[in-house]
């Protein structure tokens, strides 16, 4: 009973967190598991941070669009990756050199299957 209350409290606490507050644990899971599911879950959290910022007319937090681009490449979503990288470059001009390096490196990545997409790849 006590354990159930504890689990419930954790779930409520987790549900109240923003995507940014969830970010470290989401990245941790992606680094720990390295499974398509964990990578796809972190990609979804980055998408939420990215989309909500753009919808508000704001820049995504520093580095988030570049990370979203990287995870998009991992899932084979090349068009989305390139678009996110452009957002990063225009939002944070200091990222230009890194974006160039990332693009060069990511083009060689062999994508993993995206469990959230039936087609699994290019958008």
């Amino acid at each position, binding site marked *: 009973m006590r354990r159930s209350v504890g689990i419930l409290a954790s779930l409520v606490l987790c549900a109240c967190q923003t995507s940014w507050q969830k970010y*470290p644990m989401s*990245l941790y899971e*992606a680094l720990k598991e390295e499974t398509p599911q964990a990578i796809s879950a972190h990609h979804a959290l980055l998408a939420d941070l990215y989309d909500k910022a753009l919808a508000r007319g704001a820049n995504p937090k520093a*580095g988030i669009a570049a990370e979203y681009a990287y995870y998009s490449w991992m899932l084979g979503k090349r068009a989305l990756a390139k678009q996110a990288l452009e957002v990063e470059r225009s939002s944070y001009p200091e990222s230009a*050199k*890194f974006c160039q*390096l*990332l693009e060069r490196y990511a083009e060689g990545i062999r994508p993993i299957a995206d469990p959230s997409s039936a087609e699994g790849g290019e958008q």
Partner: protein
Amino acid sequence: MSSRILIALVGLLTLVSCVSKPPVSDYEQFYKDSPFTVVVLPVNNETADAEAPRYFLSTITQPMVDRGYYVIPVQATADILAAEGLADGGALVDVTPDRFREFFGADAVMYITLKKWDTNYAILASSVEVAMHYRLVSTVSGAVLWETEHQQVLVSQSGSGGHPIAILLTAAINAAVTASASDYIPMAMQANQQAFATLPAGPYSPRFDLEKRQNLLRQERSRAVNQ
């Protein structure tokens, strides 16, 4: 047994410590080098846990971004460096900071050494401990601009008074507390929050201008007093 007694049986204690040396020794140099685009290198591991450095990386970005810094995505950095044969912090010691400016466009390099990542199990008291050393080095001048060390210890203790049922109960609670804390990540996040609170605000923080003025003024006054 009421929940009040249970709480009395198990005491949770979080201990935090940090070095007494000021994290920034020269604010003029700090603002001159403007170390605001940071590449965080794979963590140098001094613990027995081979996986700890990779997991620890997940806790770095958020507190630094919240302090107003541009942090180059940590996983992409680690993967790019691994592709170049530079997978761990130890292998990166010989790479000079200016190379990270050249390839990553970074103003500064964050070197982190993981010194403790331990759990000590005992029947009546258990502890989880993390300790990290942080060093921010300019890719312009090669100077160490910020340096600190933080340690976080979570101790679960019992005060059962020798009653056998209470001893068994507290042992079970201790085990549960230790198990839930054993992935260390929440503790590492707390230690990072405290460490990065001593890092001067970066340009994406609303406190940047104010802190810059205050830090430079404080240093100027301190020099005037010492002359």
